């Protein structure tokens, strides 16, 4: 059964469909949440809340706006950002070094084309200069605005804007245009 059928059944209150979606995507959703919360206990709570929102709001899913997973990840990110702001829980800045055990978990390009796409984006992000990668991290995963980042890093706002734009442009060239030459 595909994701669209499952989410349609969840809308009708089908618990088995809900659990099937959970089994299919909870690790992907948890990965994003854990990256944002930087705390396993909080991440578990946010994961639970995200799937409760899926259960209660499956009727709000609009297929034209993206796949069920895209929607679920957007719900997860919003839930995590609300929690971060509510708790004023700001994880410490990453030093940019990824543990080698994490890198081993990245799927090989041969596994599926979808996984290979995300692997290549991950590698593109990792290849950004440290000063640019840190800004992507603070903006996307920690939910900070450009002004908040400028204040936190003690940088002029214009510098933050320029670096963030340069980082996204570089990802666009390195990842997106390789995908659709």
């Amino acid at each position: 059964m595909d994701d669209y059928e499952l989410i349609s059944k969840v809308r009708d209150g089908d618990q088995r469909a809900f659990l099937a979606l959970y089994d299919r995507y909870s690790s992907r959703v948890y990965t994003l949440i854990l990256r944002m919360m930087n705390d396993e206990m909080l991440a578990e709570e946010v994961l639970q809340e995200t799937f409760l929102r899926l259960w209660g709001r499956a009727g709000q899913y609009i297929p034209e706006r993206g796949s069920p997973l895209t929607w679920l990840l957007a719900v997860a990110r919003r839930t995590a950002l609300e929690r971060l702001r509510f708790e004023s829980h700001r994880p410490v800045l990453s030093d940019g070094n990824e543990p080698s055990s994490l890198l081993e978990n990245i799927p090989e390009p041969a596994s599926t084309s979808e996984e290979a796409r995300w692997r290549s984006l991950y590698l593109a992000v990792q290849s950004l200069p440290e000063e640019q990668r840190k800004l992507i991290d603070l903006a996307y995963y920690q939910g900070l605005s450009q002004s908040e980042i400028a204040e936190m890093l003690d940088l002029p706002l214009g510098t933050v804007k320029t670096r963030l734009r340069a980082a996204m442009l570089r990802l666009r060239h390195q990842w997106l245009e390789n995908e659709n030459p």
Partner: protein
Amino acid sequence: MTQESFDSFTENIPAYVLGALGWAEAAALKAHLETCQVCQAELAHYQKIGDGLARALPLQTSPRSVREKLLSSLEETKTPARPKTGWGFRRFATGVMALVLISTNLIAFLQIRDLRQQHMQLADQVEQQHTILGMLAANTEIHSISGDGFSGHLLLDREKNLAYLLTWNLPPPPQGQVYQIWLIDPNGEETAAALFRPEFDRPFTAAALLTSRTFVEFVGIKVTMEPSGGSQSPTGEPILTVDY
């Protein structure tokens, strides 16, 4: 619209996708996106990166305990707790207590979620009001406005390049329309600066003016009523004007 203001919208798209724009800049860009196909195409490109960042992380296995908690909360909400014939009073009372506890927890969960949403909205309002209060300093010019049944002020800080339009009792526009603020330069050319829509139950409205240039390059503002999403140049009659 000038090339400069168009460029400022385009340049803001990557930060918009990352959720890193301030509320006023994000609202202005969102309104602009409703009518600009060039920026819509640009957004579609960057949106793929935004969506991808959510997935492009080394996979971590979700904890088993969350599945079990979800499963039990689904069971609790789906299974009516009805006492069967032949149950003893103690078992019945335990069932009622459990039901009360579950209901209390569910209500508390919903209340906390609502409180979080209210907290976010209030934080936005406080940020806006702090900016306005911060502008009420010696360097801020205050230009009074009055019209048919409404009044207000334009706050302008040339040094900090900040401007806010505050209105009182300005009626909400008809469905499908918004108020649009235009900056006017010495040649009479108009540049879009903000969209706003007063609420029925809130007579006070504050709108931040946005420009990629400096406010000293302009000599005044005007407000017109435009279709939702705003227009590239004014189509409605001026509702108010301010020369500064």
